[in-house]
């Protein structure tokens, strides 16, 4: 997709009468910045290992009314017990299939904008954030009002479908206000989707003494591209816990920018990426400790087959005032093929002097000793390998607090292993 093609799609967007012109100035500003910088190339430090061919070699189109579902859609393959689900199909909100847990406030992007008196948070951190602001379509704001604990988890289910080379730009704002909590799941799946580019930006704000659990399941079909731009702001004594399970897409890249702005905030970021074929799955993390007495952890694991590749780039920034910061970074990768390639780049930038920061990274093949041990007990070589691969990530999945979500991810892992040989 060339810049001029983006330009054509942008004109279409601006001229659509069902998009409010209130947002046009914001879109135009972001789009002109995007055009100035262009798409990242491998010369950009943070994009060295990300091959954008799955975007640049195709011409994507905005999702139209005709791309909304015809007839009913079967949600049973994505069933997770005990959650309320909002269904977004090719960028279209399917109200009739959606429900929200009691106590939760759900606003459209436009309603959210007016509640914020005409401005809401944006980011020009990356070309894809700019692109999201320019093209944002499925705008949703999830608000947990002060002193409210939402018991039932909320899921956003994004379904991509069809052969129309769609480009969809979901925009999600989540505000967990003071002394509140939410368990939030976003799940990305495909139905016969041959070519699809989703560029999602999520803005999360966790206010004083609040708690957000965020699970992200990225299981799109193999030919799709999923760009996730996740912005997190945390206030005092807030807890944010993130877990991604990714096994889909030809290119899946997760960018997290987390800012710890209030003392006592705790940010725990976890991820598992499973790749085969020519898939590329990247984790690009920045945690910014701006104030004292915060804790953060990064724990990411990738398992790579065939000639797939992956990135873990984790940067922890500790500002001068952020004394007593306690942070850890761990990245462990399992290469199941000689042709698989993993880039692991843990980084620390520390300007304070009284901090605890640890980081570790390891990449290797299956442990021969462990394999021999299992085989010497009668397990055939494939079962033994599968058991070790499963064991490599299963303990991370065990930490998910919502039982049905945990079980669903466990069975996805089992399914992935069925194809391992």
């Amino acid at each position, binding site marked *: 997709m060339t810049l001029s093609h983006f330009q054509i799609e942008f004109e279409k967007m601006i001229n659509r009468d069902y998009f409010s012109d209130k947002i046009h100035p914001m879109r135009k500003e972001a789009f002109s910045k995007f055009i100035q910088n262009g798409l990242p190339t491998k010369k950009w430090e943070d994009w060295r290992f990300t091959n954008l061919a799955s975007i640049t070699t195709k011409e994507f189109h905005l999702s139209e009314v005709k791309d909304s579902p015809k007839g009913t859609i079967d949600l049973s393959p994505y069933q997770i017990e005990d959650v309320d689900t909002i269904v977004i199909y090719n960028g279209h909100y399917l109200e009739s299939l959606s429900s929200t847990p009691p106590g939760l406030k759900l606003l459209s992007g436009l309603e959210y904008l007016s509640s914020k008196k005409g401005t809401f948070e944006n980011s020009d951190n990356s070309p894809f954030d700019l692109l999201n602001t320019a093209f944002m379509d499925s705008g949703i704001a999830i608000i947990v009002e002060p002193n409210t604990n939402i018991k039932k988890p909320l899921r956003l289910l994004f379904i991509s479908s069809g052969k129309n080379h769609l480009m969809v730009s979901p925009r999600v704002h989540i505000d967990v206000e003071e002394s509140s909590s939410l368990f939030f799941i976003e799940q990305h799946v495909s139905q016969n989707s041959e070519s699809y580019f989703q560029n999602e930006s999520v803005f999360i704000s966790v206010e004083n003494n609040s708690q957000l659990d965020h699970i992200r399941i990225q299981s799109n079909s193999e030919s799709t591209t999923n760009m996730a731009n996740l912005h997190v702001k945390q206030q005092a004594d807030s807890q944010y816990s993130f877990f991604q399970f990714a096994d889909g897409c030809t290119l899946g890249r997760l960018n997290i920018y987390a800012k710890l702005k209030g003392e006592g905030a705790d940010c725990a970021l976890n991820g598992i990426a499973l790749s085969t074929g020519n898939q590329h799955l990247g984790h690009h993390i920045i945690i910014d400790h701006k104030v004292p007495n915060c804790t953060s952890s990064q724990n990411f694991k990738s398992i790579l087959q065939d000639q797939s590749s992956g990135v873990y780039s984790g940067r922890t920034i500790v500002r001068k005032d952020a004394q007593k910061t306690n942070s850890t970074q761990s990245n462990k990768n399992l290469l199941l093929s000689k042709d698989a390639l993993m880039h692991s780049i843990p980084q620390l930038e520390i300007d304070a002097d009284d901090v605890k920061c640890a980081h570790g990274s390891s990449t290797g093949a299956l442990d021969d000793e462990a394999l021999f041990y299992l085989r010497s007990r009668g397990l055939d070589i494939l079962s033994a390998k599968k*058991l070790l691969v499963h*064991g490599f990530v299963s303990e991370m999945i065990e930490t998910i607090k919502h039982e049905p979500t945990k079980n669903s991810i466990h069975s996805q892992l089992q399914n992935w292993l069925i194809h391992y040989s």
Partner: protein
Amino acid sequence: MLNINNLKASIDGKSILKGINLNIKPGEMHAIMGLNGSGKSTLANIISGRDSYTITEGNVIYKGESLLDKSPELRALKGIFMSFQYPVVIPGVNLTYFLKAALNAHRKHRGEDELDAMHFLKLIREKIKQVDIDEKYLKRAVNEGFSGGEKKRNEILQMITLEPSLSILDETDSGLDIDALKIVANGVNQYRTSENAFLVITHYQRLLNYLKPDYVHVLIDGKIVKSGDMSLALELEEKGYGWLEK
């Protein structure tokens, strides 16, 4: 049950075993004693199927079949078990799950039905009592956070669960205090029958006092230089190995 004939093996071009001959019949317990580097563990590893060695001469016949061309798992399924000198930690793999998978692989091989979770748990709760392992360990990852003694008891637990014909105990006594040693020896002794055979590899006669092997062999520099009964082990304890080396 096991016939080792003129077995010679090397690792990275270095000759380790220099012609081993050994016959083990059902019901017998053989002990192999020797210093570090004499080739004891190499022998155990070759029988159980570790592939880091090159066999340069000789053969190993188990129950009438050549053993050396078989995979480690097939040897296990045919009834060979090795208690590891250094049991391996398997992160993320729950001990119960592992034991059940291993036992069911054996049952399947024998043409028996696989045990379901409930029946397996009933069985394993009986077995852990014999080696004095607390039930909480069943929920842990294999050998993770186990003390040295617990790891060795876990090896014996696997042995009595999988019910092998030939058990090789590779320095099962190393790192054990006297209480753990008694538990391990007791577990082994309970499993001795006229059908099962044992090959016990050790530096010291301490474990042998509890096991009372039928035969004791001394391995020096890749060869069995002397064979005898339990009295040979006592003699070694008293005089060391020096008098056997020339």
